[in-house]
């Protein structure tokens, strides 16, 4: 509901909002340039200012002070009226006082699109849409992040467009809300829906009748500092009954030109003050810094429009467009997903099933109705969860309906969860479905399984299990829009483990040269950090394999650890690669898996090739953040990866501690064992706000989590709690 509100408001209002935002940004520059031009008039009284201006331009009729501090005088040159900026120090003309035609054009475009009242209403509707977009957007981000307390955490999950959209919108949120609220106030005030300002004072019935007194001596004018002046109108030349009219931030009054007495005054009321404040907050007049801030926030609007549209388009692509009707299909694939990526996986599965001679229907999980599945004997439920583990919006209410549904004879289920291990409630919704299925006694095609961060490998592995269970030849090659690859040349390799039949290599690849043009435009091979992933497409496959990077682009090379898996296509090709050979690769960011930029301790835990990114973190640790490495491998003389560097990094202070467990040494130990043995220190590091980064095989990561759960138990912390704070991240395979 919130999501579709956000989407439709966004689509309908996008162009209007972009127009309003860009004109607003342009207008925000004027108060800033005014503020730069405005001379200081501190401690000057209006009497002195008026005397100086009158001396310089005797025909002066009015002096105005803008909130920026600029002082404008209105007078005549011969018959022609002139408005000029004056220097308060001398009273002399310092520039043209007319508002520029450009500023007037932009103002009228911004507030009424040159359509007078109709345009003002349209612009106000734009402001209201902006406000609604901001608020619905805030709810969407909170839901995605797992609660309002997590709002400021880095964004995780979703397509790149959605993530950019969410990141930028959080930055722009305060400015956009302030701009739209004040815009609505100003429109309401223009149309007279708000209380009126104070009335002008009664015009004095009698005056002293004297004229020609020295302005600088008039007491009431001397009492007003220039800083609170809004305007001062001079009495008409030669009219002894006329008076000075002065408007200040405090109110409005009349001053006798003969004796300088205040002969009428009305205080500014609440409405005057509120209006002045709102106008300042909206336009930045007198608060140039705020104006610029709002201007920059408004710049986010076109960006949000484009990324929002891209996210929407990415989400829509391939939603079961080519699937068979539900009553004719042998396999029903149902998707419960808020974003669109899971639909892509469903489409890959559908195509593979059809290629194997099956008929498949793809639909939303909300359409689950076993009684209509005349020919189906299996239903595959693909459910994604991000954030706090709640059901995605399109699948709301599904769980309750599913729990109340009778089991249909002859229909089996397969449940596949899509999620991100960096969240506390990994695949929470899918797990709930699986639990209900078990409770109700639905037969399963194959056990509940999960896909981490849209991993094509996870999906292919699940596909192999599915094809074995169904007795079909399925190959699930899920390729999300193929990334642009670059050629990288192997410069050196270090080999380990040959004697234990565990060929492992550290490969160092040369980065492609970037031309000056590419550097300037940010094109070419992207910058990366240790912990990011490099996708390598092996020959004979379209499916990229991902390896964690053990270096950053700052190091000038890309380094990875690869272990040869029996029959592994990519690992086989990589471990037999000779220096000088080239591979095709691309970068995938993995921003949640890296040390937080603070002085708190970092606990690095890895086994086997999992040491790669951890070594990279140590290598990049120039500022000597306390980092403790726990590393598990087989044998000190065979596969102690990075053994040479580790000692050096420790000596340089890049690592505060290194402990290694060897599983094939005389006293075999796993990484879990050295963690257990060091529980006291781990507990202290975690209590000090430490962060845990785990990299390696899935079983190792599960074992580590077990040990750390025990370590944390005493202090009342949980792994789920640490994950929610971004203090526990895993990179597992």
């Amino acid at each position, binding site marked *: 509901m919130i999501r579709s509100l956000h989407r439709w408001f966004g689509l309908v209002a996008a162009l209007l909002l972009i127009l309003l935002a860009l004109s607003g940004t342009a207008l925000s520059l004027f108060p800033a340039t005014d503020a730069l031009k405005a001379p200081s008039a501190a401690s000057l009284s209006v009497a002195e200012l008026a005397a100086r201006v009158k001396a310089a331009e005797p025909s002066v*009729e*009015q002096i*105005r002070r803008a909130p920026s501090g600029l002082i404008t005088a*209105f007078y*005549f040159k011969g*018959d022609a*009226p002139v*408005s000029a900026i004056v220097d308060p120090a001398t009273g002399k003309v310092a520039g043209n006082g*007319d*508002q520029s*035609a450009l500023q*007037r054009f932009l103002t*009228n475009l911004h507030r009424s699109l040159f359509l007078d009242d109709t345009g003002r209403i349209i612009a106000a509707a734009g402001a209201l849409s902006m406000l609604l977009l901001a608020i619905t957007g805030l709810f969407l981000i909170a839901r995605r992040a797992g609660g309002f307390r997590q709002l400021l955490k880095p964004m995780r999950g979703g397509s790149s467009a959605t993530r950019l959209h969410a990141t930028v919108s959080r930055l722009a949120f305060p400015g956009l809300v302030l701009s739209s609220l004040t815009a609505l106030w100003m429109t309401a*005030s*223009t149309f*007279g829906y708000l209380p*009126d300002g104070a*009335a*002008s004072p009664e*015009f004095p019935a009698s005056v002293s009748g004297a004229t020609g007194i020295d302005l600088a001596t008039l007491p009431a004018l001397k009492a007003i500092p220039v800083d609170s002046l809004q305007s001062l*109108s001079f009495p*008409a030349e030669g009219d002894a009954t006329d008076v000075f*009219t002065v408007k200040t931030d405090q109110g409005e009054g009349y001053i006798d030109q003969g004796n300088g007495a205040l002969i009428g005054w009305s205080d500014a009321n609440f409405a005057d003050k509120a209006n002045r404040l709102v106008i300042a907050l909206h336009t930045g007049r007198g608060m140039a810094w705020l104006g610029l801030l709002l201007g920059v926030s408004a710049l986010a609007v076109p960006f949000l429009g484009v990324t929002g549209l891209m996210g929407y388009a990415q989400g829509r692509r391939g939603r079961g467009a080519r699937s068979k009707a539900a009553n004719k299909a042998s396999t029903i694939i149902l998707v419960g997903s808020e974003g669109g990526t899971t639909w892509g996986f469903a489409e890959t599965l559908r195509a593979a099933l059809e290629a194997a001679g099956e008929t498949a229907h793809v639909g939303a999980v909300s359409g689950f109705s076993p009684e209509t599945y005349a020919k189906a004997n299996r239903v595959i439920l693909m459910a994604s969860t991000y954030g706090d583990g709640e059901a995605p919006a399109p699948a709301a209410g599904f769980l309750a309906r599913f729990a109340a549904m009778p089991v249909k004879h002859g229909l089996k289920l397969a449940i596949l969860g899509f999620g991100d291990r960096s969240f506390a409630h990994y695949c929470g919704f899918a797990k709930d479905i699986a639990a209900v299925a078990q409770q109700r006694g639905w037969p399963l095609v194959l056990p509940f399984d999960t896909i981490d961060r849209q991993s094509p490998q996870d999906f292919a592995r699940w596909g192999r299990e599915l094809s074995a269970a169904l007795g079909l030849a399925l190959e699930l090659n899920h390729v999300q829009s193929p990334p642009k690859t670059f050629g990288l040349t192997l410069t050196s390799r270090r080999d380990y483990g040959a004697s234990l039949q565990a060929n492992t290599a550290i490969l160092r690849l040369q980065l492609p040269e970037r031309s000056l043009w590419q550097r300037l435009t940010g094109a070419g091979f992207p910058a990366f950090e240790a912990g990011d992933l490099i996708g390598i497409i092996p020959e004979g496959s379209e499916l990229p394999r991902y390896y964690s990077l053990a270096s950053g682009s700052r190091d000038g090379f890309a380094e990875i650890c690869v272990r040869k898996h029996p029959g592994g296509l990519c690992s086989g090709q990589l471990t037999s690669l000779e220096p000088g050979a080239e591979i095709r690769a691309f970068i995938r960011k993995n921003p949640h898996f890296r040390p937080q930029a603070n002085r708190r301790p970092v606990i690095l835990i890895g086994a086997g090739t999992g040491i790669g990114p951890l070594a990279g973190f140590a290598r990049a640790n120039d500022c000597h953040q306390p980092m403790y490495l726990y590393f598990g491998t087989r044998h000190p003389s065979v596969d102690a990866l990075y053994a040479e560097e580790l000692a050096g990094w420790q000596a340089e202070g890049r690592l505060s501690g290194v402990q290694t467990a060897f599983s094939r040494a005389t006293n075999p130990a796993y990484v879990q064992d050295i963690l257990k043995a060091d529980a006291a220190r781990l507990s202290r590091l975690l209590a000090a706000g430490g962060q845990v980064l785990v990299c390696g095989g899935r079983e190792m990561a599960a074992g580590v989590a077990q040990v750390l759960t025990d370590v944390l138990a005493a202090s009342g912390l949980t792994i789920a709690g640490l994950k929610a704070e971004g203090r526990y991240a895993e990179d597992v395979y």
Partner: protein
Amino acid sequence: MTIRSFLAALAVTTALSFPALAHAGQVKLSTNLRDYGGNPAFLAYYVTDASGKYAGSLWMAGGRTRYYRHLSGWYQATGGNAGEVNGVTGASVGSGRSLDISLDLTDALFDAGYQLHIDAAVEDMRESPDEIVIPLTSANAGKTVQGRRYIADFTFSR
């Protein structure tokens, strides 16, 4: 019937296009604005009697009552009462444009010490009360007078 209420009645009949009353003649007010390069101007046309007292409003160019306080002469005279221009209100007048108004005014207004005032105001620019002040005399009819700031010239003709 005081002059003031008589004027007001006239103003209303003008707005509603009633047939002209006896002893009244059509008066045309022509105003040309300078190209002062700003937003459209608000113009208030009103009459004071021989003692300088406000007698009534003839026309208000500009619909938004919120801005009337910037027509400071008119605003002081009427206390900002928008009812004074009820039915005799039109659009504000753009820079460099002109405004022609035809009104049925009683003959009693002429050659009896009454003066016609025009106040002008433009957003973000100097307010200009009494931009035009011209005695309503037969001799002044058809005579062109110049304004000070926003009004290039003004003529009334009977």
